[in-house]
């Protein structure tokens, strides 16, 4: 089975079950990686940072294509609407105080070689 996307031609055999894989695109070496989204085996097709295409291994189809920013925005489609408060100053203070309380034996040691 072959999968085509733009100038890329994929054979599913080029995708290992684990780890990273290099392959050739018009003679240029590219790298692909995998991670699991929504329980489906996928891979991010290399290209430019800020733009990601997702390949559904089970069907061989490109199922998503959007930037990380768009990814965050679209995530709202997955869950229920609740409230709008992004940051609570009270919670910030509570957590800052918790960190300060749980900090024990805080120390900062300079490295031996000093900046000239």
């Amino acid at each position: 089975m072959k999968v085509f996307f733009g100038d890329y031609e994929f054979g599913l055999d080029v995708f290992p079950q684990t780890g990273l894989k290099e392959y050739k695109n018009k003679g240029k070496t590219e790298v692909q990686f995998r991670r699991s989204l929504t329980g489906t085996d996928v891979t991010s097709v290399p290209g430019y940072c800020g733009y990601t295409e997702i390949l559904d291994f089970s069907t061989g189809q490109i199922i998503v294509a959007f930037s990380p920013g768009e990814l965050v925005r679209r995530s709202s489609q997955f869950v229920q609407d609740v409230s709008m408060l992004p940051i609570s100053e009270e919670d910030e203070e509570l957590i800052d105080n918790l960190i300060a309380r749980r900090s024990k034996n805080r120390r900062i040691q300079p490295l031996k070689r000093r900046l000239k």
Partner: protein
Amino acid sequence: MTTERWPPVYDAKELATTINKLVDSNQLKSHFFDYHSHDLGPCQGDIIWLATNQIPVLDEIGQPSIYEDDFCSGYWMIVGNTCDIARNINNVEWTQIIPLLDLGTDNEINNNELAALMRYRHSRRFYVPAWSNEVSGHHFVADFLKPVTIHKTALFEVAEIKAKLSYYGWMLLHSCLVRFLARDDGRFD
């Protein structure tokens, strides 16, 4: 120096909605980690063990120093972009991690603090629940204020991946990372 308030570059309303929806989603609470993808390479959001809890910093006079504290656990979270981690090391040699601080168990954190941690309405740390029996009962925060640069070879050959975030966990991390770096300017609050 400008005296005007700087607006967030990011769409704050949408970002806030996303974070709150994810936090209040039962799916997030029950699926923070992905326990089926440990054989994959390192990715953004992974929890790793490095056997060091020393944090390299520049101190108050700009001097290279080591920060230590008993609650620095030796666990770290990868915050560098997965795309950069996957790229050839000759092109992208370094990435970033942040330390996980062990805040202790329920006996050492009061209910108000625990509730605040889980609301994710604080911006400088990221709450991480226990990911395995190894740390069962403990509450952690990943400290956005102390990023550390790490050579990618150490990620692949030295670091031990302890847990991977689920899609929802990663989405929450991603949203909180963006909020930490691009949140509204609060100088005049």
